[in-house]
């Protein structure tokens, strides 16, 4: 017989936090292990998905449900549709944001399980307060409202409330922490939770205000510019706003941690959870029948739904992976200390069993709020030293591989103090930061720039590792022992059938088996790290991305020209065209002038590309248009083609062959790009006005650069019925970001450092294209000597143009 499951059969459960790690496992077990049970899930509507869609996508399609799907076979979808309902709501808002229908659904549930929390240990204080501190009370308030609604209807309404807390609410003091309400714990400082809420909310307001001070804003803008370069107003603004938000968040995390530590908790998570428990008991302890569940550190499943099942990258995983990568050489902790880890399925079983007992208990026998702790430390202690031993032995046997395919040997662990580890990490992080700044200031692109991006990534990882040590160090140094007497008493009361299905006894864990055969393989699999020797998986990733880019399903491929397809620029083209018909003596003077003003031109280009082009193109004023058009073909075949990237040209044609539309978007002049016309379906470029067969030197419209490119691209795609999310953009510089970000498949070509870093972070395809070795490589972009000599040089000659150029050049440099 199975007393508990019989009590639970056919009941309906209201679950919050179902998209989380614990929540998903809980919902799965309720549906699989409890006959005819139903669940109502409180889910926050996503930006593009209804709660129902999120439930299907994020919960039912998780591999957690593979077992149930296998058991049910074809009837899975129907059965889930019948037994699972989702209602919109958010534990971060008062009243949970429930509409009438949702409240009605809640009123028809028997048990309410609150598993939603901001579990990250570095959540901003106010977010942790809203969710962790106020969340349980809000759910309890909804519980009361739903019960009133049901009673008005003559129904019983929800009977029991199970909020999930954490064992660490008892702080990390030495000694035993019993399964009792916090009011009974003499070590907890008595603070008023209401004033903590007010203070946290005020802190948010103050920090927001501080972040908007002009000096701060200027700093964010500068940082954005440093990062992106001349990426255009919109992108810079967007980036600078992101930096401001990040800064606010970082401030609030720091404040939260400081406040928590001042009260004796390691960080904001247990602090807010603890106050949440107290607020709940104080406000609803008398009116809502409730039992608090306090698990310790929840890790991958021991057996249910399958050994090793885990969701998300959690607390211990990043640490383990950092260690296996050789990044984290040491992690603080005492070898004799107890690491209190508990597999998720034991926690789920405890929740289900407690719910079953609660339903079996008549209302008049309920004696008030109580606590169950689900932890392993007392019943089946797992020493930190043993953990480290198992982990390093496992990685010696199953090493990760670096990008060269060499196995990474994990370091010996010397159980240092936290201070030493922090110093070591801070040192390497500083060194990398310096190298990064140095390399970043060099004018590099292509492979070197990618190397720079790799350096930045290492820096990021080192920083993150430092963060782990700061955050989690306290947990490995915990000496607290979380007693589980009530849990074990519950286990004793359970009959054999219930025990078979709802194993919650920590003694069931064989730690060596758990670490070696269950947890580490699962962690490594989820971390998507390199576990086989041989060439880097990065090439595999690039190969996959390239394949996606070259799928026939794509619509449009837009290309930048300069340094994306051709290693040349508007100044080269101009110099070539203007010197095409000069006498040898004049050529020298012309080149000298152009070289002299190069720095001024470069500076202007960096400041504002639009201004640069506008002012530079004035030099074409008075140039004979037809002659330039003829010369442009020679320019193309002699200079531009010689400086082209053959792989790039081949890529354009590959896209065309795949049926993609190809578009060249460039700030170069129409007459210069004319010889490229057969390569593309369309060309958007700069065009100079023309009067009496001569160029005016004035642009007819804004050149397609910076943000204008994104707009041109969007307009073009719109007019042609093409979708940008199915399109590619190829460009080489951060100033092309607006165009790159506008499409679904951006490709960075020989990226300069800033773009290389961005491309790497966002997983964009990076192509390294070279000029063909073997082409002519003229030092100066000069046209060939005109053999026609002085035959037709006269009033119409571009010598006048060059003269003008020289005068202009002198004007600029002065």
């Amino acid at each position, binding site marked *: 017989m199975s007393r508990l499951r019989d009590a639970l059969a056919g009941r309906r459960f209201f679950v919050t936090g179902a998209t989380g790690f614990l929540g998903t496992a809980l919902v799965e077990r309720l549906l699989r292990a409890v006959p005819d049970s139903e669940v109502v899930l409180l889910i926050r509507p996503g930006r593009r998905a209804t709660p129902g869609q999120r439930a299907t996508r994020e919960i039912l399609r998780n591999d957690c449900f593979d077992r149930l799907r296998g058991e049910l076979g074809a009837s899975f979808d129907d059965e889930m549709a019948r037994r699972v309902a989702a209602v919109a709501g958010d534990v971060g808002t008062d009243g949970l944001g429930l509409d009438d229908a949702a409240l009605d659904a809640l009123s028809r549930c028997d048990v309410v399980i609150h598993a939603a929390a901001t579990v990250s240990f570095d959540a901003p204080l106010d977010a942790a307060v809203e969710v962790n501190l106020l969340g349980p009370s809000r759910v309890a308030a909804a519980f009361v409202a739903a019960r009133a609604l049901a009673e008005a209807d003559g129904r019983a309404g929800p009977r029991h409330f199970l909020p999930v807390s954490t064992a660490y609410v008892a702080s990390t003091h030495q000694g035993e922490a019993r399964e009792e309400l916090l009011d009974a714990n003499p070590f907890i400082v008595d603070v008023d939770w209401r004033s903590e809420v007010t203070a946290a909310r005020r802190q948010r307001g103050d920090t927001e205000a501080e972040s908007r001070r002009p000096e701060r804003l200027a700093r964010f803008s500068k940082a954005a510019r440093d990062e992106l370069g001349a990426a255009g107003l919109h992108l810079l603004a967007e980036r600078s706003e992101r930096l401001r938000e990040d800064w606010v968040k970082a401030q609030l995390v720091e404040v939260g941690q400081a406040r928590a530590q001042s009260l004796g908790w390691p960080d904001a998570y247990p602090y807010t959870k603890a106050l949440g428990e107290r607020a709940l008991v104080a406000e609803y302890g008398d009116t809502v029948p409730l039992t608090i569940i306090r698990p310790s550190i929840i890790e991958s499943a021991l057996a249910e739904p399958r050994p090793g099942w885990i969701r998300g990258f959690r607390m211990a995983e990043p640490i383990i992976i950092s260690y296996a990568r050789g990044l984290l050489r040491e992690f603080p902790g005492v070898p004799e200390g107890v690491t209190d880890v508990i597999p998720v399925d034991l926690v789920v079983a405890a929740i289900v069993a407690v719910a079953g007992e609660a339903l079996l208990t008549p209302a008049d026998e309920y004696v008030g709020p109580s606590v169950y702790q689900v932890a392993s430390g007392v019943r089946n202690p797992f020493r930190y030293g043993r953990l480290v031993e198992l982990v390093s032995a496992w990685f010696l046997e199953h090493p990760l591989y670096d990008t060269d395919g060499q196995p990474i040997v994990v370091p010996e662990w010397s159980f240092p103090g936290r201070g030493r580890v922090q110093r070591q990490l801070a040192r390497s992080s500083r060194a990398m930061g310096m190298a990064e700044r140095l390399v970043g200031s060099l004018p590099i692109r292509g492979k070197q720039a990618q190397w720079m991006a790799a350096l930045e990534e290492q820096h990021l990882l080192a920083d993150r590792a430092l963060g782990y040590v700061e955050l989690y160090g306290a947990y490995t140094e915990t000496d607290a022992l979380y007693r589980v007497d009530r849990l074990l008493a519950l286990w004793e009361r359970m009959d054999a059938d219930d025990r078979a299905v709802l194993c919650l006894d920590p003694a069931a864990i064989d730690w060596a088996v758990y670490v070696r055969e269950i947890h580490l393989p699962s962690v490594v699999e989820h971390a998507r790290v390199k576990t086989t020797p041989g060439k880097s998986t990065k090439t595999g990733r690039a190969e996959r991305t390239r394949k996606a880019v070259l799928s026939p399903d794509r619509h449009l491929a837009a290309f930048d020209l300069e340094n994306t397809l051709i290693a040349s620029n508007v100044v080269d083209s101009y110099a070539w065209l203007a010197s095409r018909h000069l006498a040898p003596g004049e050529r020298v003077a012309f080149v000298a002038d152009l070289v002299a003003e190069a720095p001024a031109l470069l500076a202007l280009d960096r400041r504002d590309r639009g201004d640069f082009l506008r002012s530079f193109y004035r030099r074409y004023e008075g140039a004979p248009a037809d002659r330039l058009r003829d010369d442009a*073909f020679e320019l*193309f*075949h*002699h200079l531009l*083609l*010689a400086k*082209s990237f*053959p*792989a790039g*040209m*081949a890529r354009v*044609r590959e896209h065309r062959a795949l049926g993609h539309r190809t578009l060249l978007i460039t700030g170069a002049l129409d007459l210069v790009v004319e*010889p490229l016309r*057969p*390569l593309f379906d369309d060309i958007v470029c700069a065009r100079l006005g023309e009067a009496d067969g001569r160029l005016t030197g004035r642009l007819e419209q804004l050149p397609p650069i910076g943000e204008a490119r994104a707009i041109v691209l969007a307009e073009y795609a719109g007019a042609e019925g093409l979708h940008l999310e199915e399109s590619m953009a190829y460009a080489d510089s951060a100033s092309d970001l607006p165009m790159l970000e506008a499409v679904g498949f951006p490709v960075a070509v020989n990226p300069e450092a800033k773009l290389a870093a961005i491309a790497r972070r966002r997983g964009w395809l990076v192509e390294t294209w070279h*000029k*063909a*070795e*073997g*082409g*002519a*490589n003229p030092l100066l972009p000069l046209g*060939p000597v005109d*053999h*026609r000599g002085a035959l037709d040089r006269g009033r119409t000659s571009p010598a006048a143009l060059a003269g003008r150029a020289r005068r202009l050049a002198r004007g600029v440099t002065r």
Partner: protein
Amino acid sequence: MSPRPGFVLDVDSSTPPTLFWRGERLSLERLPEGSRVVYPPEPLDPLEDPSSAIRHALLHPVGDREPLPALLSAGMRLTIAFDDISLPLPPMERPDVRQLVIEQVLDLAASAGVDDVELVCALALHRRMTEAELRHALGDRIYDAFAPNGLLTQHDAEDPSNLVHLGLTDRGEDVELNRRAAESDLLVYVNINLVAMDGGHKSVATGLASYRSLRHHHNPVTMRHSRSFMDQDRSELHSANWRMGRLIADAGVRVFQIETTLNTDTFPGAFHFLQKREWEWKAKDRLAYAAASAALDRTPARVARRIFHSVRAPHRMTSVQAGEVEAVHALTTEHVWRQQGVAVEGQTDILTMGLPYISPYNVNSVLNPILVACLGLGYFFNLYRGKPLVREGGVLIMTHPTPWEFHPVHHPSYIDFFEQVLSETTDPVEVADRFEEDFATDPWYIHLYRTGHAYHGVHPFYMWYWCAHALEHLGAVILVGGDTKAVHRLGFRAASTLTDALEMATDVVGPSPTLTHLHAPPLLLADVT
């Protein structure tokens, strides 16, 4: 002293090391005793007075043709076609033979009152010549008189309006020709016959044709049945061109063929030692070799290339004949053989050759890997009559650095051919079946061919077909000193030294193989019995 004929040297213990070309570099290699070295004949004495020889040829044509003045009349339409940059090799010192011949043709035309004259460069699917190259071939006077008025054009095989389809041969081969040339009252063709393959009906039928026409004989099957294409009696390439040439004549196109032959005086001044026999090197030659090879070894490849490509050969004219195509070409072929023919007895297990920096398709450019293959397996391998120098299943060893380098302006389709085609297959038939049409009709390559200085999109395929006979015949090809990746892409084996290569070759041909070295350039034609 009259020039000595070519001969075959048997290497013994007293033989000095043999000169090997390695692109823009040189080396001396000691060949195993018992090896043979085939030396070309010495340069023939040139015609003493080329101008009068030309005049004589124009006035005394051979075959069924009247003297040129009788063919010229006022009001007629005259087109003069001439060979392109691929001939001669290296480009000759000024004045170029083409200039000498065309100047006289133009003089005669002027005296006859012909005023509709156009010059067409017969480049087929080769790259267009640059202004400087045209000036070099034709002289400034001709260039300045014709080019500015649009009367000097380069054949455009992709301009449908300038092509005319003359019909099909009895084998169903399309004959499509340059319209101006085909519709002229007289087509004068000015040729330079550097090797036995050049000239004859091939001048017009190939030089002024389109892809539609060329594909009938520029394909793997034809090339495998041209043994060799230097021997027109046993060359399917020539049979097809002759069928087409006869159809062109039957269609009423009157061709006045002028063919010239040059001697093999190939290298000037400081490089003269390159065409002398090693054991006859004097102190001056040894010094020149030491200086040149040491300097070249220390010079960046790009600079060495520029030095070599600025070499202008002191070639001199040894014969000129004009008139009806076939009669003219018979005489020309005799002259070529007289200069280049060498009798060789029996085949060899291993054939070695040093590949120079130049081939017909990289004048002022780079000898890219595909051209390396074509120069060795296409041209040098085929410098035979009778039987190939190397036996069937034998090994060909070539020395060349074979860098992974391409000229982006001249050889854009080669780059893609190397990346996209040879990475998939090196079998000429499969290459043709799977890839040729896409490259040949690619609008971008056509655009670059027509408006720039690019070889046609299909040209790298022809280079590969040129190798088809050798690829079928040989047991292995080893490239010494080449870029390993590029050599492997070609489907060849890479060795770092000649000794290693010989060692590797014994895996294919067995121990104690026979070895023959082809000592070219200067060019020679082996008459193998």
